């Protein structure tokens, strides 16, 4: 279980997170929604330790993440980045098997390659992609490779940062389905940040809306349309009028 209590983070005068309280249950799929620039990525990076919160506590299974053994902590996570963040200098299979080729999870090279190809197949890519470089792949294929890398070491927790941004609707649907299937079959805890409502409905067990530095609303995805929260209603209906100020 991931628990955030009174988490705050500012960049200069910009108070991105003011007082975030959120619990993500083990094995559940939590989707954080919110407008651009509301601090969704900062929240996710705070959990991973890529950004240090100014105040508040973040615990994983009751242990403060800032006091956990860093390697062991990160070994429990997989992450799909918004732009896939594949390493340009490495072929696809070495990107996927990155964690299996070094560090505490190191495996023999042949075994790591076999796992990488297996994971590539799992995300719908053929084995002939393995020796190509990321720059030779389309945006959708790069996302799939990023997804394969995120699951290569079979992590307990997977983070997805805007998984469908920049993809056409069909490819976005494919990625959403893959995420849902993989999270279910691995029994992983998932946290996704997105403002794509199709993704939300495809991926989420629970939804939390981040606005103005706080969790404005959270609840099961089944209650999203009847949340009774004006912020959520405006966001999911995409209206310019409402409590959320639209910059024109």
């Amino acid at each position, binding site marked *: 279980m991931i628990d955030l209590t009174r988490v705050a983070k500012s960049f200069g005068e910009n108070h991105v997170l003011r007082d975030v309280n959120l619990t993500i249950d083990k094995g559940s799929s939590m989707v954080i929604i919110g407008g651009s620039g509301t601090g969704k990525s900062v929240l996710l990076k705070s959990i*991973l330790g890529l950004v240090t919160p100014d105040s508040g506590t973040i615990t994983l299974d009751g242990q403060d993440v800032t006091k956990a053994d860093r390697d062991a902590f*990160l070994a429990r996570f997989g992450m799909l*980045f*918004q732009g896939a963040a594949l390493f*340009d200098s490495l072929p696809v299979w070495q990107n996927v098997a990155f*964690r299996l080729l*070094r560090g505490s999870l190191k495996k023999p090279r042949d075994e790591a390659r076999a796992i990488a190809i297996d994971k590539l197949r799992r995300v719908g890519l053929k084995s002939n992609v393995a020796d190509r470089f990321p720059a030779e792949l389309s945006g959708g294929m790069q996302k799939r490779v990023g997804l394969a890398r995120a699951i290569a070491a079979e992590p307990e927790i997977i983070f997805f940062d805007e998984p469908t941004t920049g993809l056409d609707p069909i490819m976005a649907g494919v990625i959403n389905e893959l995420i849902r299937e993989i999270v279910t079959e691995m029994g992983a805890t998932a946290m996704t940040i997105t403002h794509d409502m199709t993704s939300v409905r495809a991926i989420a067990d629970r939804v939390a809306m981040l606005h103005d530095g706080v969790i404005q609303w959270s609840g099961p995805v089944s209650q999203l349309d009847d949340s009774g929260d004006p912020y959520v209603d405006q966001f999911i209906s995409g209206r310019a009028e409402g409590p959320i100020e639209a910059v024109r």
Partner: protein
Amino acid sequence: MILLSPFGALGRATLALMAVVGRVALFALTALSHVLRPPFYGRELGLALLNIGWLSLPVVGLTAIFTGAALALQIYSGGARFNAEAVVPQIVAIGMVRELGPVLVGLMIAARVTSSIAAEIATMKVTEQIDALVTLSTDPMKYLVAPRVLAGLIVVPLLVAVGDVIGIFGGYAVATGSLGFNPAAYLKNTMDFLELLDVISSLVKGCAFGGLAALMGCYFGMASGRGAQGVGRATKGSVEAAAVLILAANFLLTGAFFSL
């Protein structure tokens, strides 16, 4: 108050400069500590050695040969003013080995390697590849910075040695080809005049310049701002800083080796 404002501006600039010096020093110490501590990334070191060393050979060789050749012509024509044309071999040798070889190789490395390291790492930063490394339990200082700095320390002295030899050969080719020097006498004069300290100083300078060039590329890359403009600024800043530091270090090392 208006009269005091220049002092305030000077004070702020000094403090900002000191802050940068502190950050760079801390970065350098962290990088060097990672060079010495496992895990070591052999493949990354190999690639850095190839990129900084082997692939820089053409530009280093061409720079050295033309500089050596031009130096021979200058010394010959300058020496003719007081009947000292015969000192061409000695001055080419000492000029290349003590000064021009290390400095020109250092500046070429700053132009070719520092810029490429800074651009590569800055691009990795803006495309979240550095964050991805961290989430994959890999320390970017160890994986990206340490191999490049170590490669700079190892391979640039070798490049300087190659540059020295090629530069001397450039002078030899011009002197024997068009200035009428005897080839055997030219080589003998060169070898007789050079001392061990000249060669050691050249290699030490190469080591220092290689470390500085790689370090500046890594520092500016890791400190890059967002977007294409951030990458551009990081690249430009890294080359400027590396070039100035190389020239300053050259002055200090020349003083340390040769001041009486």
